[in-house]
């Protein structure tokens, strides 16, 4: 006779197609006591399912399968790839439906801040750092790829977000390069006001981006953090978090940045169309700008700067990124980990960032094409200033709910203190559920 737990399990399977995961898939890595590492001498074969939010479209497919992965299949002809291209905004539900269906991909590529939740839920397996070429990855990036001191994913390419500015238009308005060399947030705010007064245009295109990420960066700029180091309590309700949110709210109130300049995915934003003088842009826009608006990338038009902090030595740069992880339910973990190792190789990583335009997570041999991406080069030089949001196992539950709450503050519908209180409640509720 079924007990209550079994009955509930059966109901879950019936309702959500978990039957396959419960019966059909043998977990090959979740029970392993040792971190997964590649065995280069083994003859690899089988199919590797790869889930990636990068390499969208026909060009992306050609880059990934025709170049990046081809080097691997040339070496291991017995391995075939089944690639699932899922855009970032659908990646979370793709993962959950894969898990519910009992067939998560062998290699999962996801974003910064996702490692801890997935490691906590035992969706991704621990990885041997030395075996996958991650030794020379910047330490703070490896921290973001770790949970409870163990590595669960490998940072591959980073989506750094420096401030970029229209040197040409600002110059015409009488704002020279020297004026852009600000050291603190206060000086930066004064600069934005000056730009508004002299150009009549929106000084900063930041609120049209993800508010969660903007706040995440500014908390660090104001000298704070979002969560305690163990990720089990919040710290964003402290003074830096409040100041950071107030700063964003004031940007909107004073017309220094405009939430209403938000555009649909794929449409050119306010910076690209010349409506905003400073953009908070991903290093990954380089290839897009190179095609759509190459003039913006010319030396005489493009300036790049870090986000100032509370003092000259507290500058920050937001770091998103793409990490690769090994599924605990992979049927072919040896080949899967070999794929991750290969993707971190000079050739594998170079070919990836050549297409994505992002910053490689470790130093690569000089490459004229990659070196031409000034945003990536700038970000690469400033990786030590990297900050990112997240850092709690409950992040996947929290992150999706933050933007609507923050939008209310930016639009003046809710006070900063009420917004922080609501964010605190939803974060603590979510953390309470993973404890």
């Amino acid at each position, binding site marked *: 006779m079924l007990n*209550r*737990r079994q*009955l*509930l*399990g059966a*109901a*879950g399977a*019936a*309702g*959500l197609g*978990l039957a396959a995961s419960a019966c059909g898939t043998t977990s090959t890595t979740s029970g392993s006591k040792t971190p997964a590492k590649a065995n280069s001498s083994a003859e690899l074969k089988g199919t590797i399912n790869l889930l990636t939010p990068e390499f969208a479209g026909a060009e992306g497919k050609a880059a990934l399968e025709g170049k990046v992965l081809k080097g691997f299949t040339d070496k291991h002809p017995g391995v075939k790839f089944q690639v699932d291209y899922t855009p970032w905004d659908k990646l*979370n*539900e793709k993962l*959950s*439906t894969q*898990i*519910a269906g009992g067939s998560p991909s062998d290699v999962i590529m996801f974003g910064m801040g996702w490692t801890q939740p997935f490691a906590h*839920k*035992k*969706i991704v397996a621990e990885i041997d750092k030395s075996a996958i070429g991650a030794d020379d990855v910047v330490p703070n990036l490896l921290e973001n790829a770790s949970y409870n001191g163990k590595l669960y994913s490998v940072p591959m390419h980073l989506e750094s977000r420096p401030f970029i500015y229209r040197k040409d238009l600002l110059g015409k308005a009488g704002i020279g390069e020297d004026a852009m060399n600000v050291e603190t947030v206060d000086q930066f705010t004064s600069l934005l006001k000056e730009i508004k007064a002299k150009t009549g245009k929106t000084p900063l295109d930041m609120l049209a981006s993800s508010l969660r990420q903007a706040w995440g960066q500014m908390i660090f700029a104001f000298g704070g953090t979002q969560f305690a180091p163990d990720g089990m309590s919040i710290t964003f309700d402290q003074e830096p978090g409040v100041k950071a949110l107030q700063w964003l709210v004031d940007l909107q109130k004073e017309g220094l940045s405009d*939430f*209403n*300049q*938000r*555009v*649909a995915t794929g*449409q050119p934003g306010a910076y690209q169309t010349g*409506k905003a003088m400073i953009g908070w842009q991903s290093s990954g826009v380089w290839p897009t700008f190179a095609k759509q608006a190459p003039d913006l990338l010319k030396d005489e038009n493009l300036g790049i700067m870090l986000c100032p902090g509370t003092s000259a030595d507290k500058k920050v740069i937001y770091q998103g990124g793409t990490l690769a992880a090994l599924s605990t339910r992979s049927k072919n973990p040896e080949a899967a980990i070999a794929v991750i190792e290969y993707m971190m190789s000079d050739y594998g990583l170079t070919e990836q960032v050549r297409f994505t335009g992002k910053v490689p997570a470790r130093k690569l041999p000089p490459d004229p094409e990659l070196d031409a991406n000034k945003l990536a080069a700038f970000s690469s030089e400033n990786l030590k200033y990297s900050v990112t949001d997240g850092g709690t196992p409950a992040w*996947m*539950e929290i992150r*999706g*709910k933050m*933007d*609507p*709450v923050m*939008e*209310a503050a930016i*639009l003046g*519908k*809710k006070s900063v203190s009420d917004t922080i209180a609501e964010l605190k409640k939803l974060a603590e509720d*979510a953390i309470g*559920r993973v404890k």
Partner: protein
Amino acid sequence: MTATVTAAPAGATSPRRRSSQRSEKLWGWLLTLPAFVHTLLWVGGPVIAAIVLSFTDFDVVNPPVFNGGVNYSEIMGDDVFWRALWHNLIMVAIGVPISMFIALVLAVALNQGLKGQSWFRTMIFMPHVTATVAIAMIWLWIYAPNAGGLGNVMLGFVGITPQSWLTNSNLALPAVIIVTIWQGIGLKMLIYLAALQGVSQELYEAADVDGASTIKKFVHITVPMLRPATFFVLVTSIIGNFQTFDLIFNLTNGGPANATTVITYQIYVAAFQQFRMGYATAQSVVLLLVLIVITLISRKVVGGTDGD
């Protein structure tokens, strides 16, 4: 010619007739059996599973854990969920009557044998068969928050400054309702058109003899004769509105500041962004109850197909 029908005395059905009735009943059951089994397996099963899951904490990865009525008590205190329900009700209260009225007027107009009416019917029905993602893309362009968006170009003609349709929390929901009205007219019009074909012309001829005006004929003949169709359109439109998801997902993501979020979007967020399947199914069960109540009220108000 006259026909005489002699009713058989009650309880005096012949054995042959009784056998025929039994056979008819049996065939009736046999023919409905596939649909019945299908419904039982693919509708009844998931509904029961959802109800069971709604009393659990289930994160997809680990087995569900019974948590009593925690999900339901959380829903009671979930402001965003009730806000989403309110948005659904607003969409129904405003969008459904407007779209039904426009659809009825168009159906009557396109039932007059006008030149090119087939072309108009096709054009009006087109949004219904177009993928909602494509529709959302078109309306994103119409609602583009700058002078280049078609909506703002139109406003410019009458001297109104460009509006931030989808990022202004006061405008976003009306903007979404406009799209649902536009998208929903086609199917409603088609149903009304089909129903209009069934209205006897003799009724209109008799009204003509009595000297009734066009409006009186519309009010006293067309509208009452379309009552079953109206009930069907009303109930399916209400349910359709409560199921709106893809439009919200592609147009606004429920924003800004939850100004356009609806229940199905909240269910999606809970299930696929937060991995809280137990909570999401509890929300689904509440949605089911809301729909049952609204359908019963609609039946009471419109009268349904009783006696038809």
